[in-house]
């Protein structure tokens, strides 16, 4: 058995770095019991918190990088501990010693240099808008800024989502444009990785740019951008009206500005993205949209809404290697198949990517497709 | 009887002249007044000069009415002069009583008012940037203008006042009655408010009122209020509940809410604060956010609650601080 002596200065440093609720934890273990890592290789977040409370070695364990910031533990925590903030603050402290995993360092470097985590070039950003004839945002003529996420600019699969979004918004008569030069990553994941100063730099530059262009309303395709704009940017002076495409489509349907008339023959189930659902409580709009698509049959998975299983791509995990057998998305495909679905819908470019990968890895191309909800809506347009 | 007649004066300081019109508005009762009084000074209606007054012996005027607030050096000079020349001095109308509409200038100061009036207002056409100066030499000699003060004062804040006759303008019936009482030598205690009731407007207001609850505030010109029902119940701010009655509810009778020209009730220290308190307590909200949301529907609360009484209120004016500190 080990012997340990508490090192309270460390605990205080974590609190100061933003883990303000650290001391509230009463070790009930709900977090560890709720963590999606429990399905593959349990992550003992409860123990990490207790080690941190006493400043004991081990709080900075490698395990810390496993957290996908899915929010399951945070929403269930009976003491209201901001566990994600805690993870962030510990990561921040580790970051200061330079011990960040290699692949994350590369992604962060890319954000620092190119304004995106995918090593894409700045000139490529929003280039998709050209062929689709989406104009540059102009506050006199376009109501919304369409913020496609780095994914739309640098990932082929995600480009289909933005194309669908453009079709849908046009069909409803919404005016929107994209930012010309200078737009950067929303930096949501950067913050979760613990690189607070880089986050503030990138976010600050976006805020300045949006303000200079007179942006007031933003439509986003990724729940991660949504979360950053909505919950993190205001503290830095960026107060915009942010809507996720799912919210926008739902309100267009309610106002009867959008008609879905072409039947979509599919049995669909829906995967709630963590940052749309648990983090921002948007559970009903996606289901409402699915109910309006003619011909579509809908079936819930067991882990739906608050219980949704993380795809594994949040909190910086998008850029880290996850061992085969430890990918949450690999568990999700069979779960969707078990309810008889042939389309697994979601509404997040990260989720689409992760689930798409698993579908291929598990050789289920024939059995099931992975689609963004926006794509299903676009299919249903006449 | 002629030598027993009262010598009456009427002067206007920072005033619109409405009070003088109100005095005329007593119609045929003016004959009763003339029967008991000689008008010895009334620059608005007759040709009197300052030197006429200066020439009078002290306490020459039996009753002097002064309308208007004190806003510039000329106002101050004249009211002090008239105080010396008068036995009884009565503040006439809201401006003299509590500051009145000119008192709203206390939300600003001399410099910002000049800036607006001579430079910034949308209708100002002043390419050369001409501004009035207090002394200006011309061939004929030196021209002078009075000095405009930063702060508007009531008459009572400037000189010793015997009675206060409120109203914007005072109700003609009340004017006649007050003159009658003074003439009859039945003057009330010094410092009294005369020609007004000790109770608020609601005493006389005929509108029906059941329960106060503000879900939002409405502006009079954007609504068609039911003439039978209390304005407040219809969401329109009416400051009648914090205002002396005596005006004959002329505004309310014309379907306009009371704006408070008759001033605060006898035991009230600050008319605006009391009305604010009464109204806010009846806001239909129990959380700070909901309260703010409802308050957002009330434009210019300070101007509403202190429309007539800012100079006589507890804080008297907008604070600027010695170093020009400005609140947000």
């Amino acid at each position, binding site marked *: 058995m080990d012997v340990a002596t508490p090192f309270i200065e460390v605990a205080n440093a974590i609190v100061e770095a933003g883990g303000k609720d650290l001391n509230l934890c009463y070790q009930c273990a709900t977090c560890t019991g709720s963590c999606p890592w429990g399905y593959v290789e349990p992550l003992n977040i409860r123990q990490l918190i207790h080690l941190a409370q006493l400043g004991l070695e081990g709080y900075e364990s490698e395990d810390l990088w496993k957290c996908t910031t899915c929010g399951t533990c945070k929403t269930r925590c009976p003491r209201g501990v901001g566990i994600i903030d805690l993870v962030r603050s510990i990561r921040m402290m580790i970051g200061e010693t330079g011990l960040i995993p290699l692949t994350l360092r590369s992604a962060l470097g890319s954000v620092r240099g190119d304004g995106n985590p995918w090593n894409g070039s700045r000139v490529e950003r929003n280039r998709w808008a050209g062929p689709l004839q989406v104009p540059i945002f102009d506050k006199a003529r376009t109501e919304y800024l369409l913020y496609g996420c780095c994914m739309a600019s640098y990932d082929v699969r995600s480009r289909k989502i933005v194309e669908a979004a453009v079709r849908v918004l046009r069909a409803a008569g919404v005016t929107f444009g994209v930012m010309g030069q200078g737009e950067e990553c929303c930096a949501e994941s950067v913050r979760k990785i613990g690189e607070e100063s880089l986050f503030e730099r990138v976010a600050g530059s976006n805020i300045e740019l949006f303000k200079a262009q007179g942006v007031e309303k933003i439509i986003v395709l990724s729940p991660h951008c949504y979360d950053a704009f909505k919950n993190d940017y205001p503290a830095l002076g960026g107060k915009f009206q942010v809507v996720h495409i799912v919210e926008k489509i739902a309100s267009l349907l309610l106002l009867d500005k959008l008609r879905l008339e072409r039947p979509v023959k599919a049995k669909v189930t829906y995967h709630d993205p963590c940052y749309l659902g648990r983090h921002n409580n948007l559970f009903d709009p996606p289901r409402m949209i699915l109910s309006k698509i003619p011909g579509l049959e809908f079936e819930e998975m067991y882990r739906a809404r608050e219980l949704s299983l993380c795809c594994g791509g949040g909190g910086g995990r998008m850029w880290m290697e996850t061992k085969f057998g430890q990918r949450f998305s690999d568990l999700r495909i069979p779960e969707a198949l078990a309810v008889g679905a042939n389309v697994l819908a979601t509404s997040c470019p990260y989720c689409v990517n992760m689930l798409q990968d698993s579908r291929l890895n598990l050789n289920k191309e024939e059995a099931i497709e992975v689609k963004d909800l926006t794509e299903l809506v676009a299919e249903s347009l006449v | 009887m002629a030598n027993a007649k009262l010598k009456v004066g009427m002067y206007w300081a920072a005033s619109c002249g409405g009070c003088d019109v109100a005095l005329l508005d007593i119609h045929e009762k003016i004959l009763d007044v003339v029967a008991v009084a000689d008008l010895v000074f009334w620059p608005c209606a007759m040709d009197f000069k300052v030197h006429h007054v200066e020439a009078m012996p002290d306490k020459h005027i039996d009753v002097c009415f002064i309308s208007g607030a004190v806003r510039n050096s000329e106002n101050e000079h004249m009211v002090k002069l008239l105080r010396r020349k008068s036995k009884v001095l009565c503040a006439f109308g809201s401006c003299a009583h509590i500051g009145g509409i000119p008192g709203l200038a206390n939300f600003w100061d001399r410099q910002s008012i000049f800036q607006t009036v001579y430079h910034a207002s949308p209708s100002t056409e002043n390419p050369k940037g001409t501004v009035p100066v207090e002394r200006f030499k011309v061939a004929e000699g030196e021209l002078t203008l009075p000095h405009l003060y930063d702060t508007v004062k009531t008459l009572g804040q400037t000189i010793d006042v015997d009675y206060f006759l409120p109203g914007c303008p005072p109700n003609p019936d009340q004017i006649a009655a007050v003159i009658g009482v003074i003439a009859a030598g039945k003057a009330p205690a010094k410092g009294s408010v005369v020609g007004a009731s000790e109770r608020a407007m609601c005493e006389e207001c005929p509108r029906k009122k059941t329960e106060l609850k503000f879900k939002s505030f409405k502006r009079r010109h954007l609504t068609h209020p039911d003439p039978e029902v209390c304005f407040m119940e219809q969401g329109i701010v009416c400051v009648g509940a914090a205002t002396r009655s005596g005006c004959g509810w002329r505004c309310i009778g014309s379907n306009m809410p009371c704006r408070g020209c008759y001033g605060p009730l006898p035991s*009230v220290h*600050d008319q*605006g604060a009391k009305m604010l308190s009464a109204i806010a307590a009846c806001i239909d909200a129990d959380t700070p956010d909901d*309260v703010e949301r409802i308050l957002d529907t009330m434009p210019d609360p300070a101007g509403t609650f202190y429309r007539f009484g800012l100079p006589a209120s*507890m*804080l008297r*004016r907008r604070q600027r601080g010695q170093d020009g500190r400005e609140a947000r």
Partner: protein
Amino acid sequence: MSFEPRIVGILCNWCSYTGADLAGTSRMKYAPNVRVVRVMCSGRMDPTLVLKAFQEGADGVLLAGCHIGDCHYISGNLKTLRRIPLLKRVLVELGIEPERLRLEWVSASEGARYQGVVNEFVEQIRSLGPLDLEARRLPATASAS
């Protein structure tokens, strides 16, 4: 000499005054700048009292009552919860920083909270500087009502 704010505190009898007493019986030290008036309920906190404090030279006014839902008189604190935001809007127009007026809920058991509120408020007023009310330099009002 550095600026020592003079602050009037108006506290409800049942929660906040008792909470302030608790800070005392617990020997918690805090800034001595707040001078307290006890009223029975925060519902008694008439805006006129706030103006009076400013008029008498207070640099700040602290109002404290029972937490919402815990009012000893059921709902008196709700009335003040509604009044103060409107008063603050008016204070802004009167050139007084709304931060000079603070409404807090302090329960009878929150001695430490009272200590914290007072210390924080005193520092806030200190950074705002003296109010130096102009009305105090103007000639006194003759009886005008």
